[in-house]
């Protein structure tokens, strides 16, 4: 193939790296009001009084808004398809503040300095309540985070607000307790995964203004323009038809921007003043006043027979959703959704709750529950293998779901593709499993050891993610590809163009790709849930095929032959005999000039009832210092089955980035709070993401499969790549020193203390 499978450079790559004005703040009008937010210093409090009079008198202050000035419809910042599964539990501003950093007042001024000065002049009196900080004590706590009457959900998610339970989940196949009772070996362990910050390069930002028709326009660094439109309509109580959301280039998302940031605040200022406004979250706000990965406690029970056949798997989950329920129920559900199908145990069950606490909300984050679940389940599999005296790779090969098997999520659809078994075998070979597993002494105080984990994710949300693509043949013979998918640095504008170019047998240059603008783009939920390559990709392929047929028919008509006797060959339609041809340019021109014409537009809306899983086998080699407990990653091998690899170099960087984020979760990153609920890790000085030297050598390989339902056989890759490092590295550390760190991250101190304890036994 000419385009699919080729490492084509990102079409916007040069503009991004050479600093062209393509991001929100580059585009914002220079006279836009600067919007700043006064935030709560308390984790849980009621505003007794708020005095803005002094601040309002300051020269250059345009408006100051408090809870008295906002619409009273509760909404959610989670960007999800309607009906949103996240509870409508927040107001733009409220007289109750539920975490340190919760918004208290909106300040709009001519410049930042004035806005900040005004902020200092606002006097607030609080009545401070006892906050819920420990999520394991949230259920039944004397403080109730969300007692309000008018909190609502679109459907039953298991909310019990008086108990601080946002969502409850239960799914079971088979008889878990019955199977467990008959197992020869049972592993029962509790795992903790921490809150993790997205740490994307570009912080949240939105620029708003009223257009020539008085409609609200929001240029927003978001992954979900259509969801933001719906969210703004609800929060501001204006019709969605009066709102336009435009996504420019985005400097990273990782799921963060599947949740709204400052959009509502800037929009409210523009509505109140009629003036352009912009809000830019600084790094500290981005760390401490947005969302993080949901911290979780996951109890695993796994049973097997003596031969290592897994018979039962049970997960009990407690998820900390913080002060608001953004993505609470869905992340909770995904813990099981992407782990339980992986092993063909007869009986499988997940139960769990997501709970409110007075901390920053959890949100969408690459992996979306699967990452947390994978750490727990894969750690348990490694422990099971040890208990059985079997090789952990062999246990997996014995139990994993294979192509043709039934996935528990989709009883009526056999698994269309998987090379996970080959991924495992290849990964073992590449990491040197035979020679290096489990552990070797490399220096008097240093050992090196291996560990592994496997994982799956989905490709879009089955029955919900539906993408539309349109491709038109322009008057000059070029094409415009209209999509609503949101390239946030991932490169989807490039790969979707590759797919269209492949179908239309044209060049990359002849396709103009436009995304995303709610006034122009066809509907797409946005880029999340690993949906874009698979769902939007399929819509693009089908739209391109539709257009191709139309071009062929039109060309054949002009050539006066039947469409069966003609073919599209690059820039011409010609007869199969080869005696007549007409150029695409002429077809294009003839389609739009004169009477009785019709411009050719290919179109497709695509959604699927399944979400085919991509797979990864990850292998870690760590070196552990026996005297300090410090673990360094020496080598990481990731073997990926993402179906057909549409663009190898972009798939590789997705994988490397996901592995790096996984390494961060394994060894370094941890969102921490003090006893009053103030975030301690609100800058890159305190919040440690791995630096280049900590990543070591990450080696990425692809074991392609062919997914029959995917575009050119492709599945997703964006999220699945983040899941293996934590369990694989934890396994390697265990093999090195015998300490199982079950609470992430694996710090030198935890390993050291674990070794001390072993020495005492």
């Amino acid at each position: 193939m000419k385009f699919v499978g080729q490492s084509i450079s990102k079409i916007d790559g040069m503009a991004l790296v050479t600093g062209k004005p393509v991001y929100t703040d580059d585009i914002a009008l220079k006279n836009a009001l600067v919007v700043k937010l006064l935030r709560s210093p308390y984790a849980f409090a009621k505003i007794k009084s708020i005095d803005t009079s002094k601040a309002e008198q300051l020269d250059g202050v345009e408006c100051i808004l408090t809870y008295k000035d906002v619409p009273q419809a509760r909404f959610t910042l989670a960007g999800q398809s309607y009906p949103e599964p996240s509870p409508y539990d927040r107001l733009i501003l409220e007289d109750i503040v539920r975490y340190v950093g919760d918004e208290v007042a909106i300040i709009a001024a001519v410049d930042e300095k004035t806005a900040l000065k005004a902020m200092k002049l606002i006097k607030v009196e609080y009545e401070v309540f006892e906050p819920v900080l420990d999520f394991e004590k949230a259920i039944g706590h004397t403080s109730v985070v969300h007692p309000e009457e008018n909190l609502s959900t679109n459907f039953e998610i298991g909310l019990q607000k008086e108990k601080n339970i946002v969502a409850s989940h239960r799914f079971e196949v088979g008889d878990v307790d019955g199977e467990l009772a008959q197992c020869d070996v049972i592993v029962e362990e509790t795992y903790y995964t921490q809150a993790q910050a997205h740490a994307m390069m570009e912080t949240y930002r939105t620029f708003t203004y009223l257009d020539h028709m008085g409609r609200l326009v929001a240029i927003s660094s978001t992954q979900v323009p259509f969801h933001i439109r719906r969210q703004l309509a609800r929060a501001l109580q204006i019709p969605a038809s009066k709102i336009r959301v435009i996504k420019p280039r985005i400097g990273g998302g990782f799921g963060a921007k599947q949740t709204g940031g400052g959009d509502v605040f800037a929009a409210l200022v523009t509505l109140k003043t009629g003036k352009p406004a912009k809000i830019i979250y600084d790094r500290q706000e981005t760390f401490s006043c947005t969302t993080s990965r949901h911290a979780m406690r996951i109890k695993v029970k796994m049973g097997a027979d003596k031969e290592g056949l897994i018979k039962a798997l049970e997960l009990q989950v407690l998820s900390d959703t913080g002060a608001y329920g953004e993505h609470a129920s869905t992340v909770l559900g995904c813990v099981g959704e992407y782990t339980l199908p992986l092993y063909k145990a007869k009986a499988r069950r997940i139960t769990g709750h997501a709970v409110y606490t007075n901390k920053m909300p959890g949100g969408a984050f690459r992996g979306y529950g699967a990452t947390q679940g994978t750490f727990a389940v894969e750690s348990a599999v490694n422990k099971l293998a040890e208990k059985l005296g079997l090789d952990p790779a062999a246990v997996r090969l014995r139990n994993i779901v294979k192509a043709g098997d039934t996935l528990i999520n989709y009883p009526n659809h056999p698994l269309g593709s998987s090379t996970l078994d080959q991924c495992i075998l290849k990964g073992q070979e590449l990491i040197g499993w035979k020679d290096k597993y489990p552990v070797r002494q490399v220096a008097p105080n240093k050992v090196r050891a291996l560990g592994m984990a496997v994982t799956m994710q989905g490709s879009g949300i089955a029955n919900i993610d539906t993408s539309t693509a349109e491709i038109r043949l322009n008057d000059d013979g070029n094409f415009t590809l209209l999509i609503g998918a949101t390239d946030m640095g991932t490169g989807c504008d490039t790969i979707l163009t590759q797919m269209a170019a492949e179908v239309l047998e044209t060049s990359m240059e002849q396709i103009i790709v436009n995304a995303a603008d709610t006034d122009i783009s066809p509907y797409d939920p946005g880029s999340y849930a690993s949906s874009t390559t698979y769902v939007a990709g399929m819509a693009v392929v089908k739209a391109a095929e539709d257009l191709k047929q139309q071009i062929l028919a039109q060309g054949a008509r002009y050539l006066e032959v039947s469409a069966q006797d003609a073919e599209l060959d690059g820039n011409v339609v010609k007869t199969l005999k080869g005696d007549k041809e007409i150029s695409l340019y002429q077809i294009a021109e003839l389609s739009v000039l004169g009477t009785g014409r019709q411009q050719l537009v290919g179109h497709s809306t695509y959604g699927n009832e399944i979400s085919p899983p991509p797979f990864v086998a990850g292998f870690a080699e760590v070196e552990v210092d026996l005297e300090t407990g410090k673990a360094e990653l020496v080598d990481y091998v990731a073997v990926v089955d993402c179906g057909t690899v549409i663009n190898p170099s972009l798939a590789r960087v997705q994988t490397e980035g996901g592995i790096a984020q996984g390494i961060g979760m394994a060894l370094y990153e941890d969102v921490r709070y003090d006893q009053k609920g103030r975030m301690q890790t609100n800058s890159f000085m305190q919040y440690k993401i791995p630096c280049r030297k900590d990543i070591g050598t990450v080696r990425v390989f692809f074991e392609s499969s062919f997914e029959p339902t995917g575009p050119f056989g492709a599945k997703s890759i964006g999220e699945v790549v983040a899941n293996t490092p934590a369990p694989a590295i934890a396994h390697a550390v265990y093999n090195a020193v015998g300490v199982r760190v079950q609470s992430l991250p694996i710090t030198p101190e935890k390993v050291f203390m674990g070794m001390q304890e072993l020495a005492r036994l």
Partner: protein
Amino acid sequence: MTGMRFKLLEPSTIDEALDFLAAADVPILAGGTDLLLKIKRGLIWPEAILSLHRIPSLYCLSYEEGTGLSIGALVTHVRVAQSPIVKEKFPALAQACALVGSPQIRNLGTVVGNLANASPAADSASALLALGAQVIVRNSSGVRQMSLPDFFLGPGKTSIRHGEIIEAITVPEPLAGTASVYLKLGRRQALEISICAAALSARRVQGHWQDVKLALGAVAPTPLLLPETASYLEGKEWTSEMLEQAGRSAAALSRPLDDQRASAEYRREMAEVLVKRCGLALIESAAGRNAHE
């Protein structure tokens, strides 16, 4: 960036700089890697800051045989880390400077700034303590000089008074046979503030170690010189048991805190390990030197 508006004073001589300081109490700017962060975080809001960058003499990094090393106020970590003479004569210092932050930070940050900032975890501080460095301070009435233990008063606190400028750090010429080493424990491989750090300097005379100096970082309110532990090691032929004992002694003398980076208990344990490792490293370097000769 919020609040980053100030007047920049740029004197071209030290006397001119002292005049500015006499007129107003403004912060001194070297590489700015600590100072600008403080301003950005809103911890201080200076109207003006005094940059030393136009004072040529402060860029001087010089060594004179028999006297020792002089590190001017604007000498960056990268220059010290890469200097052949520092690597040869003052290896602990070269190692410490090479472990500061990242290449960007080492290109901007200065050794003097590192000391003046007075973080208990400052990398160059414990190395310079173990090397017996002196701080040369200028004020309107002349020059005063002090040893590092007198210089550090507490976290962020030094004995520099308003109106004074540190002109240089001097490190005395090591006696023949001296070796030194700096070891740092952090979580990341770079851009890391120490959980614990140790520096050891001593010279080998006929199989015995003399003039022992030991310092620890990040285990007390200031970088900590440990004369008691050093005197235990003084004049002896070190064994690993002895070094372990020294480690325990150093750990007992340290006064670490629990913070986000580590618990006090772990820090004490690590002080023990690092002290022992510093000793072993000196033994190894001496063995290496003998093998060369």
